[in-house]
C-alpha cells in the first residue's frame, strides 16, 4: 500500500489559453508571447534550487503552459562555475538561470550571462526584487530557522526562540551547518549576529553542537533522530515532513533569516519566448503561489505568506522575516567566516 504522503503542491488551477495565458484570472502572458513560446516548445533551465522543489515548480509550469523544461541542477557554487565557464567559451546552454546568492548572480551578470527582460509586472515590483533593469529578479526566499524531531521532543518542550538553544538542556544535542556552506549559511550567520546580539554565537559554540557541512545533511540526521534539534530551512522541513519524517520547524520569537533566490534570462537564450514566459510565470501570482506552497517566502509583496505544517508564517512586515541586504552580506562575509570558524574551532 502506498504510504500516506501529502502532496506538497496543490496544482489545481483554472488555466485559460484562448488569449494568451490566463491563470485563475491573472494574465501571465499575452497571446503573442505565449504563442511564440508554445512554438518553441521547450526551454533549458540551469538551476541551483533544491532538486525536488525545482521539479515541483517545473511540473506545475509544464501543466500550465505545455512547455517542456530541461533541467540541469547543480548546487549554486558549481552552477556558477559551470555557467561562467560555458559563458566564457561561448557555449552557454541555458535559456534561464536560477541561483541563490546575490554575489553569484552578480558575478554571472558581470560575465555577461544575463539579458534584461522587463516582466509585465515590472513596475509593480519592489527594488529588492528587480535588478539591473530586469537582468535578474529575486523570486522567493527560503527561510532559515531551526527545527526539531517531533518523536524526540514534545512540541510543548521544543525551543521557541533562538536563545532557547543556548539552554544547557540542548548541550551536545544540537546540529548546525558550517558557515562556509554557502550564501544561506552566511545569511543565517549575519542574522544571528545582527538580531541575536554578539553573545549568541559564543553561547551557541559553548553548547558543543554537531557541525554539518551542508544543511541537508543536518536535516537528514535530524529526521533520523540522531540529534533532536538542528538549524534548518522551512521548505526542506516541509518536504521532509511530507515524506513522513517526524520533523517540524519553529518560528522563533526573534524571527528567521531569509536568503535570496534569483532568476534571469540568459543573453545567449535560444528559446527567448519560452524563457520570457518562464520569468513571467515565476513572478506571477500563480508562480509565487507554488513557491509559497513549497514553503518559501514569496518575493512579491502581494502574495500571502504561506501556511506550512499548520503554522502560519509571519508577514514580511512583521519584522520576523529578516532579509539581509546583499551588499552588507558580501561586505561582512570574510570577517563573519573568520569569527565563526574561530568560535566553533572549525577548519576552513
Amino acid at each position, binding site marked *: 500500500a502506498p*504510504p500516506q504522503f501529502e502532496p506538497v503542491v496543490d496544482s489545481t488551477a483554472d488555466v485559460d489559453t484562448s488569449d494568451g495565458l490566463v491563470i485563475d484570472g491573472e494574465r501571465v502572458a499575452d497571446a503573442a508571447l505565449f504563442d511564440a513560446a508554445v512554438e518553441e516548445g521547450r526551454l533549458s533551465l540551469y538551476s541551483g534550487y533544491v532538486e525536488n522543489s525545482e521539479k515541483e515548480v517545473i511540473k506545475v509550469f509544464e501543466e500550465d503552459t505545455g512547455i517542456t523544461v530541461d533541467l540541469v541542477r547543480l548546487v549554486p557554487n558549481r552552477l556558477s562555475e559551470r555557467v561562467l565557464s560555458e*559563458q*566564457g*567559451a*561561448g*557555449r552557454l546552454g541555458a535559456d534561464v538561470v536560477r541561483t541563490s546568492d546575490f554575489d553569484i548572480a552578480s558575478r554571472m551578470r558581470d560575465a555577461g550571462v544575463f539579458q534584461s527582460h522587463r516582466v509585465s509586472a515590472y513596475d509593480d515590483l519592489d527594488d529588492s526584487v528587480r535588478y539591473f533593469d530586469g537582468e535578474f529578479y529575486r523570486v522567493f526566499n527560503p527561510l532559515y530557522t531551526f527545527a526539531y524531531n517531533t518523536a524526540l521532543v514534545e512540541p510543548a518542550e521544543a525551543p521557541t526562540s533562538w536563545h532557547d538553544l543556548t539552554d544547557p538542556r540542548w548541550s551536545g544535542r544540537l546540529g548546525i551547518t558550517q558557515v562556509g556552506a554557502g550564501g544561506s549559511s552566511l545569511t543565517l550567520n549575519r542574522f544571528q549576529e545582527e538580531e541575536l546580539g554578539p553573545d549568541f554565537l559564543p553561547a551557541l559554540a559553548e553548547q558543543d553542537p554537531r*557541525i554539518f557541512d551542508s544543511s541537508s545533511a543536518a536535516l537528514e540526521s535530524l529526521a533520523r533522530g540522531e540529534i533532536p534539534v538542528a538549524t534548518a530551512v522551512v521548505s526542506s522541513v516541509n518536504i*521532509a515532513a511530507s515524506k513522513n519524517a517526524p520533523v517540524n520547524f519553529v518560528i522563533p520569537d526573534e524571527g528567521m533569516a531569509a536568503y535570496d533566490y534569483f532568476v534571469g534570462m540568459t543573453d545567449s537564450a535560444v528559446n527567448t519566448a519560452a524563457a520570457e514566459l518562464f520569468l513571467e510565470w515565476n513572478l506571477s501570482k500563480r508562480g509565487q503561489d507554488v513557491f509559497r506552497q513549497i514553503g518559501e517566502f514569496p518575493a512579491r509583496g502581494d502574495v500571502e505568506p504561506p501556511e506550512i505544517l499548520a503554522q502560519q508564517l509571519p508577514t514580511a512586515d512583521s519584522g520576523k522575516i529578516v532579509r539581509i541586504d546583499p551588499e552588507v552580506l558580501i561586505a561582512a562575509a570574510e570577517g563573519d*567566516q573568520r569569527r565563526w570558524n574561530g568560535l566553533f574551532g572549525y577548519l576552513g
Partner: protein
Amino acid sequence: MRTLVRRLRQGAPTGVLLVVLGIFVVLPMLFIALAAFSDDVPRPGSIGLDSLSLDNFAIVGSAEALGALGNSVLIAALASVFAMAIGCGLAFLAARADVPGRRFLYFVGIAPMFLPSLVGALAWSLLGSPATGFLNLMFQSVGLDVTLNIYSMPGLIMVLALYYAPYAFLLVHGALSLMNPDLEEAAFVHGGTRRRTLSWVTFPLALPAILGSGVLIFALTMENFPVAQVIGNPGQVETLPSFIYRLMNASPSRGTEAAAVAITLTAVLLIVTALQQRAVMRRKFTTGTGKGVKTKLVSLGRWRWPLFIAALVYFLLAVVLPIGALLISALQSSPYVSSLGQLTEPGALSFYMIGQLILSPDFLQSAGNSAVTAVLAALLGTAVSFVVAYTVYRTNSAGRRVLEFVAMAPLAVPAIVLGLGLLWTWLVIPLPVYGTVFVLVIAFMAVFLPQGYRGVTSSILQVDRDLEDSAVLLGARRAKAVSWVTLPLMRVGMVSTVLLLLMLCMRELSAALFLFTSDTRLLSILIFDNYDNGAMQGAASVSLLYCVIILIIALLAKSFGAKTVDGAR
C-alpha cells in the same frame, strides 16, 4: 643523424599516445595547475598568464590544511592497510585456494563495488550512528550495553577499508590467477611452510598488483569525499577532501586555493607513485612462462572453513548489513526509527516508492545513460590502458616512463577538481562533444585511467614475453600476437579491469557534475541530488536499484570472461 631518425621512429608510438593522453589527462591538469597559480579562476574566455601568483599556496601551509592533511594521511594509510589485507586475502582465496564456494567468494570480492562509497557510508551511518543506528537498536533490544559509534576515526577507517578492498581484490586476483604454481611448489618442497610459501613466493610475485592497488587505494581513500562527508563530518574528523570541498563550496568560491591544495596533493601522490614504480621496474615478475601455466589450487587444510567464514563476515559487513539498512530505509514510510520493533508494524514498510521510482522517466533515462556511458568508458578505458601499459612494459620506446607518469597522474587530483579541469578542456577544444554522452565517456576514461592502467599492468607483467614473441616469429603481426597470446592469457586481469572501470564509471559523480546536461544525467547524480536534498529514502532507493543494475552488468561482463586461464581442454 640516423640514430636520431631511429630514435624518432621508436618514439613515434609513444608520441601518439602522449598526445592522446595529453588531451585526455594533461590538459585538464594544466588548467588546474594554472588555476593554482592564478589569482582568478582561468575559465575559458579569461585564460591567461597575466594574473600569476603564488598566493594560493599560502593556504597549504595553514594550520587547518596541515591538520587535515595529517588526518588524511593517517586515515588513508590505515584504511589502505586494512583494505589491502582484506582484498589480497580474498583475492588469494578466490583465485588460488581450495575454499568452499570459490566462485561465490569472487562475488564477495567485487560485490562491495556495487555500493558507491557514498551509499556505503550512508548505509553505515544508518547502521552505526550512536543514537539511532540499527545495530545499536539491535544491541539495545537484546540488552547489550554497547554503543557503536561510526562517527569516529576508527569508523571512518573501517568504512573506507570495507569499500576500497575490492580494488585490491580485483587487481590482485588477476595477477594471482596467472601465477605458475611450480614456483610455489618449489618453495613448498624446499621446506617452506604454507604461510612461508605465500609470503616468499606468491605475494611477492603479485607485488606489482599489490603495490599498484596499494598506491591506488591510498590515493583514493586520501581524496575520498563522500565517506569523509557522511561519516567523518558528524564526528568532526577533519580531512583534506572535506577541506577542499569547503574551499570549492565557500561563498565566494575559493577555487584557486582548492586547486593549490590539489596540486600539493598531486605532488605528494606522484612521489608515492614514483617509489612504487621503481619497485616494480627493478625486478621481473614473469611467472606465466612458456613452460606452462598450470594453475593449481593451494590446499588450505584445516583453515578452509575459518577463512571462508572470515570472508563471509566481510561480506556481511560490506554488503549484507548495508543493503539491509538501505532496503529498510527505502521501504520504511518514516525515516525515523526508535526501535526495531517499530519496523514490524503494519504500514511501516512499503514497496510503493521503489515501484514509483522504477517507472519514473527520470530514473529510466539516467539508468540508460549511466549504463551506456559506463560500458563505453570501461571498454575504451581498458583498451587505452592496455595500449599504454603495453608500450610502457613491452617496448623500448623512449619516454615510456613519462607515459606511465601521465597515466597515473589523474589519481593524484581529486575528482571534483579534475572535473573542473575537464569542463574547461572540453569547452575549449573545438570538437562537438561537449554536452553529449561522449564528453562523459571521455571524462570517465581520463579520471579512471590510473585504475585501468594499474589493473592491466598487474597482469601484463606476469606474462612471459617469449610467449608473444614466438607468435611474432611465427609470422603474426604484433597486433595479432597480442590478441592471440597476450590478451587471452591476461583475460582474468582484463575482465577484472573492465569490471572495475564499469563499476567506477557507474558510480562516478564528481567528474560528471560539470559535464552532464538534462539529457545526459546519470544515476549517480540522481543519488547525490537526492542525498543533497536530504531525501535519504530516495537516495537509498536509487542506490538499491543502482546496485541491481550494476550486478546485472557485472554478471554479464563476467560471463564473457568466465573461463579462467587453465588452458583449453
